[in-house]
Every structure is written in structure tokens, then in C-alpha cells.
């Protein structure tokens, strides 16, 4: 089937709801209206109101009740309408979801997914464009997954739903509908915790995820004479350190591209990992191309904030010619 990311997510939800009748989908506007991005369209009609529900405007209750349900043997798939509205539920992620298994020595577990569209670029209102994956990736016990393609969106979402532990599934809404590819019908999984090499190359490793993946590919495409290896991180935590360090061992150079603000962003962890394991292979400082250390501007200027291919090109060129 030829699918966008939104189609793929919708398809994954349908597939897993069919497979496992302990799955439930809920969140704001996910049932009657099919979700503000239509990610959950059709679920209510097929699975009924016991399994597909609209919730009140209560992010704490959405995440918290998902934990409660999950400990009861359900597989809740909750939606937070925009990642900018996840902070109200941060405490439930830190205090409950991520550590129910730990707190009860495995007696209770939270196999749950919190889906949320993240990132800028759709000209939405304030607080609709945040990228805080770095902060969430720092919470022990929480898996943070970010697909960048329709194929991965479906396969990783199915993995997330089947995962025995909680997964925060961040969806790059900027590319929700702008890419299409053929994806398999029925169910298949893409593993969490494994990065994907999108393009092999010898000169420089470029690591990215989510919507920035595509800006990165565009930048790499624009650059003549640079043989870049492009890695799609796909999972922030647990981090696939091997794929990154293997690549840098080969290329000796690296650029990390993310949309979140620079300071304290997840690029730091990647650079630290490279430093840990392959420092001596480095032929140049690792470059970071990131959002600036500011909130995402309102729509008239948000695109200045988002890493733009020329900025990535510049960083790659700088690294390669170091």
C-alpha cells in the first residue's frame, strides 16, 4: 500500500487493534473526529466505543489512566494531541509510567504507548511545535521512539504497542503527509532501539531523526563530492550506540542534526557516546545543527528556527574540510 506517515500510523493502529483485543485508543478528539491529524480515523467505527474513546482535556489523566489500564493487562495507546501539551503529563511519565515495573519488581508493568505529533513546520499556534525528546530521553525506563518514514512509522508503532514497557512515540508531524512510500499490508515490525543507515558513505556520518532526517537527506543530496553516511536514529532511548560508533569509526567525522534547542539537546549524548568509544578516530570536531536556544517562534518565523538544508550543508562541508 502506498502510504504517508499518517496513513501508516492509521494502518498500524488498525492492524494492532485487530490483532490484540486488549489494545485501546484514547485521547482528545481521537474517536468521533478521528484525530486532529486523522491518525485515528476509522477506529471508532471498526472497534467501537469501548476501545476507542475521546477523553476530557486532561493530559495528566490520559497518561496516568493509561498506566492504570496497562497494569491491568490492557495495552493502551494514548494520544497527546501535540507534544507541546505533554509537559502537563511529565510527572506521570517520570513518576509512574517509566517506573511501575521497577517500583514493583516486575509485579506490575506498563505496556503502553503515548503517541504525540512533534516538531515545527506546520504553521500551527504557539506551543504546538516543541521538540523535547532530549528531556524525555533522559528519563530512565522510558523508551522514546521517533520514526521518520511511513515504513518505519507503521513497523515501529506496532513494535511500540507490543513492547512490554512504556514507549513515548513521537511523530514528526511536519512530514505526516509530505512523503509517500509503499509499505507492506498487514503487520510487520521494525525494532525499537536500532538506528537505520539510510545511505552509506565514507566521508562523514550524519545522524538525525524525525523530520530533520529529510532535511538532512536533502542537504546531503545538494552536496557534490561528499560521500555521506546518513543514519536515522529512530530511537532516542535506548540508544543504538553501536551503529553510530561503527559509522564514525569508518568516516572519522560526524554531524548531528536535530530540531530541538541546542543546549542540553540529545546531540550531546551522541557526541559523548562517540567520544567514549571512537574518539581517536575523529578527524574533526563533531558539528551540531540544531534549533536555536529559544522557543519555537510563532508561524511567521518558525522556519528560521528549524534547521534548514543550507545550515546542514555548511556543517557537513566544515566537517569534511576540517
Amino acid at each position, binding site marked *: 500500500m502506498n502510504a504517508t506517515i499518517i496513513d501508516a500510523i492509521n494502518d498500524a493502529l488498525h492492524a494492532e487493534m485487530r490483532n490484540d483485543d486488549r489494545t485501546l485508543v484514547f485521547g482528545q*478528539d481521537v474517536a*468521533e473526529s478521528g484525530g486532529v491529524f486523522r491518525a485515528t480515523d476509522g477506529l471508532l467505527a471498526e472497534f467501537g466505543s469501548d476501545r476507542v474513546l475521546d477523553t476530557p482535556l486532561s493530559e495528566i489523566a490520559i497518561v496516568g489512566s493509561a498506566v492504570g489500564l496497562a497494569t491491568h493487562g490492557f495495552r493502551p495507546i494514548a494520544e497527546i494531541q501535540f507534544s*507541546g501539551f505533554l509537559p502537563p503529563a511529565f510527572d506521570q511519565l517520570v513518576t509512574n509510567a517509566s517506573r511501575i515495573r521497577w517500583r514493583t519488581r516486575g509485579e506490575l508493568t506498563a505496556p503502553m504507548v503515548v503517541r504525540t505529533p512533534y516538531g515545527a513546520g506546520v504553521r*500551527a499556534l504557539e506551543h504546538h511545535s516543541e521538540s523535547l525528546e532530549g528531556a524525555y530521553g533522559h528519563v530512565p525506563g522510558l523508551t522514546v521512539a521517533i520514526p521518520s518514514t511511513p515504513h518505519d512509522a507503521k513497523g515501529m508503532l506496532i513494535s511500540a504497542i507490543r513492547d512490554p514497557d512504556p514507549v513515548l512515540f513521537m511523530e514528526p508531524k511536519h512530514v505526516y503527509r509530505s512523503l509517500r512510500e509503499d509499505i507492506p499490508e498487514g503487520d510487520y515490525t521494525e525494532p525499537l532501539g536500532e538506528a537505520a543507515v539510510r545511505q552509506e558513505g565514507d566521508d562523514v556520518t550524519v545522524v538525525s531523526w524525525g523530520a530533520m532526517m529529510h532535511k538532512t537527506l536533502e542537504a546531503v543530496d545538494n552536496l557534490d563530492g561528499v560521500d555521506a553516511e546518513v543514519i536515522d536514529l529512530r530511537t532516542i532511548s535506548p540508544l543504538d550506540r553501536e551503529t553510530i560508533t561503527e559509522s564514525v569509526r569508518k568516516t572519522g567525522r560526524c554531524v548531528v542534526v536535530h530540531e530541538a534547542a541546542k543546549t542540553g539537546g540529545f546531540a550531546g549524548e551522541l557526541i559523548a557516546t562517540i567520544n567514549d568509544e571512537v574518539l581517536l578516530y575523529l578527524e574533526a570536531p563533531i558539528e551540531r545543527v540544531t534549533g536555536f*536556544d*529559544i522557543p519555537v517562534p510563532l*508561524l511567521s*518565523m518558525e522556519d*528560521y528556527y528549524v534547521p534548514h538544508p543550507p*545550515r546542514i550543508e555548511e556543517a557537513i562541508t566544515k566537517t569534511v574540510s576540517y
Partner: protein
Amino acid sequence: MDDSPRTVPPAAADIGVDPLSQGDLEIETYRVVRSDGSFDAERVPDLDDEDFRDLYRWMLLQRIYDERATKLQRRGRLGTIASGHGQEASIIGSGYALSRDDWIFPYGREAGALLLHGLSMRDLLLYWRGIEDASRMEGANVFGMAISIGSHIPLATGKAWGLELDGEDAIAFANLGDGATSTGAFHEGLNFAGVLGVPAVFFCQNNQYAISLPFDEQTNAETVAQKALAYGVDGIRVDGNDVLAVYNAVSTARERALEGTPVLVEAVTYRRSAHTTSDDPTRYRSGDEVDEWEERDPLARYRAFLERTGRWGAIDEDAIREEVESEFDEAVDAADAVEERGIEELFAYLHEEMPPELERQLEELRDLLEERPDMYEFIEQRPKG
């Protein structure tokens, strides 16, 4: 230890436990003007004819503003916007009851109230065009728009606290929707306001929906007003399509707040448009329902009142309409005339003093732009909004 009951005997019926249920509550919905324009004479507020006319004018302005802004949005000249269509009486009735010294915490649909409060229409349009400068809300006691639903409520409590400490004769006035009442921020903000006894009014336009969610799934409480009881603050439920009733309710609430009792006001109204310009309401509600509420149109009702009381004759609706239309035209022109901002804007205003790292980031961007001056042309060239 194992002798504890595994199953529990049912409680006998006659043990006399009589839970408090919302059925025990009687909550009146305050009204001045009935839908046919007839009214309760005692309740008509003591206003000048000019005020009565103004109320109509502002409601009409709200309606025209919403229509025109929606059209602008469709033409790609504003971002997503949220219309107040159907809620004009709530918006204007409340806004008219405030002093300019009061602080309004807006949440998006209350254009008319903000303009009435001194905000320029140009700035309001600029805001919806996604230009931060407009959030400066120059010349008006207006906070930034609370796009994150409910997040402003504790701020309003804090502001009211400040007003109280400074002995100012003004209140913090938070606008919110029915959806906002389900947030933790609402709860903590109202409860703390109740404890502090600060001059805050929380004005909830219960327009029956939070995007697609009908009010009866937002909460099992039958009214928003009764939520006041959870905080020991006062609650008022008012017909939100009756501009005089809303005016009276908010005036009363404002006075109580100034005396140390925060008030939660529920204006019962209806969102007749889509949630925003990105929403398609036919997916989740019936046309019949919308039609029903169209019959309860707040402008028509108020006009019927004005007619019955002989005030309509002195009101030239066409003239008002023309005046408002040209005000809107001018505002659009003024908004269009605002100069493009430079990228420096992006880095300013976060800190009083820009930290070195942020300066470095700005520098880098400047350098790159020098090399590639056309790098962001696509942004400058595209439609506004």
C-alpha cells in the same frame, strides 16, 4: 491474618448513608432577556442608551471580525484562527463589564473583548499572523493568548494576588472554555485563588464543545458553575447568549472578587463555527443542533430587546456595519504595512541579557546568511499566515 473478608456483605439500605449528589443541587441559569426579546424589567442594567447601543455595536463587531478574519485565513493571510461566532453575547457582555485597569487573560475567541479593552485590531491580526510583536498587547492590560489550554489560570491567580497586595482596584479576568475546566492547572489555580481570596474572576464560556468533545463527555458535572463549590469560591451560571445577563453576571462577579471572593462564571453558549479554521465539525455534530442554536442567536435576541424597549430606532445598523468593515480594512492595511522582522528578532527578548551561547548562535546564522543571502527567501516570499 487470613481471616479478613474476601467478599463484602452489601451495605444494608437503611443504614442512612445519603451521599451528596449533584441532583441535590439547584442551579439557576441567570437570564435577563428571553429568546423572544421579552425581559425581566428589574434585571435590566442601569446603563445609558449609548451603552445599550455600544453593546450591540461590539457584538456586531465581533461577528464581522470573525467573518472577515476567517476569510482572510482562507486566503492564506492569517494562520489558524478560532472564531467567536455564536458567543458574541458572552464575549461582549463580559468585556463590557470590565474596567480598563483589569487584566484580561485571553484564550483565543474573545477578539471583541480585547479590542474593547484597548488592544488595536492591527495587533490582533498580527498575532494571528504569527508575529510575536503583537503579543506585546501594547496599550492594553492583556496577557499573551493561552494557547496551551488552562495554563494561564494559575497566572491569573498570581496576577490577582499581585493586584491585591498592591491594593489596586482591579481584577484578573481569565477567559477559558469548558475544556479548560478539566485541566490540573484550572484546579490548582482556582483552589489557590480561593485560599488567597484574591480578586480573580474565571470566566468560562461553556460553548458545549472542546473541539469535538461535547460538554457531557468533558465532565460528568451537569454545569461548570458547580465546580466553584470545590474551591469554596462563588459560582454563577448565566445564559451566555443574553448579553445583558452576562454583563450583570460579570459585574456582580467582579464586585465579589474585589471584596475577596473569587468567582467562577459559566456562560452557557454555543460555538457555531468550526473549532478553528483547521476543523471540520460535520464529523462530530449534527446540523440540527447547530440550527437550534442559530435560533438562539445573541444578536437577534438583543435586537429584539432593543426593539421592544424602543431603543432600536436610534441605532443605524448599516452605519455600524460600514464603520466596522472599514475599521477592519484599515487594520489589515496597517498589519500589511508592518515591516518584516529581521532574524535578530528571533534571538532577542528571551533574556534581558543575551547569554554568550545565544549570541554565538546568532553570529553563526548571520555569517551563513552573508554567504547565502537567499537562503530563506522562500520564507519571505510565501503568503502571510
